[in-house]
């Protein structure tokens, strides 16, 4: 499995008319990069910019139109030079003033699709909004799971997009009062089944591998999570095609598709306590999530031969000193390039390997 060796890292990052920045350039360190500044200074904007270099809507899940600098010319640009075993590659992403909601992607200067980005960069992030991961509706956990899968299986995003698109078309036909053409429905259902089973098996494979990893790593002061996929029984392609055909009347009445991998939920349990994650304390939930993210990063390094880049927004502040020290030690040992934000420089003190950036007045300066 290990085809590529050594970390991939961002060597240069530039933001143009992105969020609070008119123009900012960073030359990050190979390991730790820490953005320090007051709340609202724009630290998370930097992480969000990086998160646009993989498929998806970024770590805030925001609309592209909201990312252009207010009072700016209307579009924005995020460009990164990454370097790794395959040599330097330039990734770019942005919008223009006449199409503020259309994401343009460039790889080495040539126009590319969003999914092509997953060939180059693997990112994992943890944000304060994810504190609610275990208590929020299933869709949030599904997106989280799909990002974990995506990091291991780059084709996952393609299958997910095709599945969703075929389902939207099928739902539309079923909602039409004119009689549905059965051959048309069948054409869509066979594509839903083709991409849906790929989607489902990639999730199950990832959870299997992650479960094995979680069972053997030393979680230290964190907690061991146990993972399970619920909400849909995985069918093979032929059985799922039949199930969809049988469910047409039911789905038409419901106005949506009631069976399929889009109904799945990621169930997480605290192993030591034998307690569902949503009933654990806030601190325990955070510890479970960190254990999961760290184990996943290790898995990605093993499977793909390169550690992922980690974006950890406001993570250090909410940990007690013991867990904070354990986190820093594991991150340093991971081989990953990682990015952290914080309001208080002293939380990170004592680690000379970290590179610090002060974020203030819409500017970033290396400290």
């Amino acid at each position, binding site marked *: 499995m290990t085809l590529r060796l050594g970390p991939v890292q961002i060597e240069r990052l530039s933001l143009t008319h992105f969020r609070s920045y008119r123009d900012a350039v960073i030359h990050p360190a190979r390991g730790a990069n820490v953005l320090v500044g007051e709340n609202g200074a724009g630290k998370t904007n930097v992480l969000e910019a990086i998160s646009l270099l993989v498929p998806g809507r970024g770590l805030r899940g925001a609309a592209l139109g909201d990312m252009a600098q207010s009072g700016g010319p209307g579009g924005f640009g995020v460009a990164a030079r990454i370097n790794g075993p395959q040599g330097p590659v330039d990734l770019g992403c942005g919008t223009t003033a006449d199409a503020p909601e259309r994401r343009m992607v460039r790889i080495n200067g040539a126009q590319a699709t969003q999914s092509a980005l997953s060939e180059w960069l693997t990112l994992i992030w943890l944000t304060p909004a994810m504190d609610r991961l275990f208590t929020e509706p299933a869709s949030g956990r599904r997106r989280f799971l799909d990002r974990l899968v995506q990091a291991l299986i780059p084709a996952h995003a393609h299958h997910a997009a095709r599945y969703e698109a*075929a389902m*939207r078309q099928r739902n539309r036909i079923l909602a039409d009062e004119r009689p549905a053409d059965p051959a*048309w429905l069948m054409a869509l259902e066979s594509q839903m089944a083709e991409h849906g089973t790929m989607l489902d098996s990639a999730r199950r494979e990832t959870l299997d591998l992650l479960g094995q990893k979680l069972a053997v790593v030393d979680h230290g002061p964190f907690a061991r999570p146990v993972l399970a996929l619920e909400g849909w029984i995985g069918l093979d392609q032929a059985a799922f095609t039949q199930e969809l055909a049988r469910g047409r009347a039911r789905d038409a009445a419901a106005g949506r598709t009631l069976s399929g991998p889009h109904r799945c939920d990621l169930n997480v349990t605290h192993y030591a306590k034998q307690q569902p994650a949503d009933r654990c304390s806030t601190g325990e939930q955070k510890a479970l999530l960190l254990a999961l993210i760290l184990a996943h990063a290790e898995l990605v390094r093993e499977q793909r031969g390169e550690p992922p880049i980690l974006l950890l927004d406001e993570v250090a502040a909410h940990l007690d000193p013991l867990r904070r020290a354990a986190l820093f030690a594991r991150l340093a040992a991971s081989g990953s390039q990682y990015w952290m934000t914080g309001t208080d420089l002293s939380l990170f003190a004592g680690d000379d390997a970290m590179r610090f950036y002060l974020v203030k007045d819409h500017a970033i300066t290396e400290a």
Partner: protein
Amino acid sequence: MSSPEIDALTQALARLPGLGPRSARRAVLHLIKRRETGLMPLLRALEGVAENLSTCQTCGNVDTRNPCGICNDPRRDSRQLCVVEDVPDLWALERSRLFPGRFHVLGGRLSALEGVRPEDLTIDALVARVANGGIDEVVLAMNATLEGQTTAHYLAERLERFPVRLSQLAHGLPVGGELDYLDEGTLAQALRARRPMA
């Protein structure tokens, strides 16, 4: 400085693909400086096309003859039929000069979201052509988009009962790729490596 007629010509050219206001002005300047060698031949060529332009009743190609040059060409292999979404796809495949048979243009792709239904495409005409006999292989050369692939699946379903081989372009094509944008080598490769429909 400029007359309304010249302005109108500039504006019309500026709307052409690949042109813009600046290149349109350059083209107009070029044409009016060369009235006899530039402007008049262009005018006659445009008139010729405008007067004779028609959609081929057999295949849906756009040509100045009806049936079109491809349908009329006796050297074409009538046993092979290649189905495409639109005329630009047909022209792209013709540029690759690899397909010896004839074509069928659907006039679009099935899209529930855009309200394009089977009856909006020339699917019944395609089924009739195949039902008439004399065709051994139907190549479904749809784009690699979800809607293109849905259309290919749909056609396979509709043509299943006829004794023809159904094949599909080898879509190692870029994800979401549209035929019209592919270079000829890639397209030729996709056609050469076509595989039977599952």
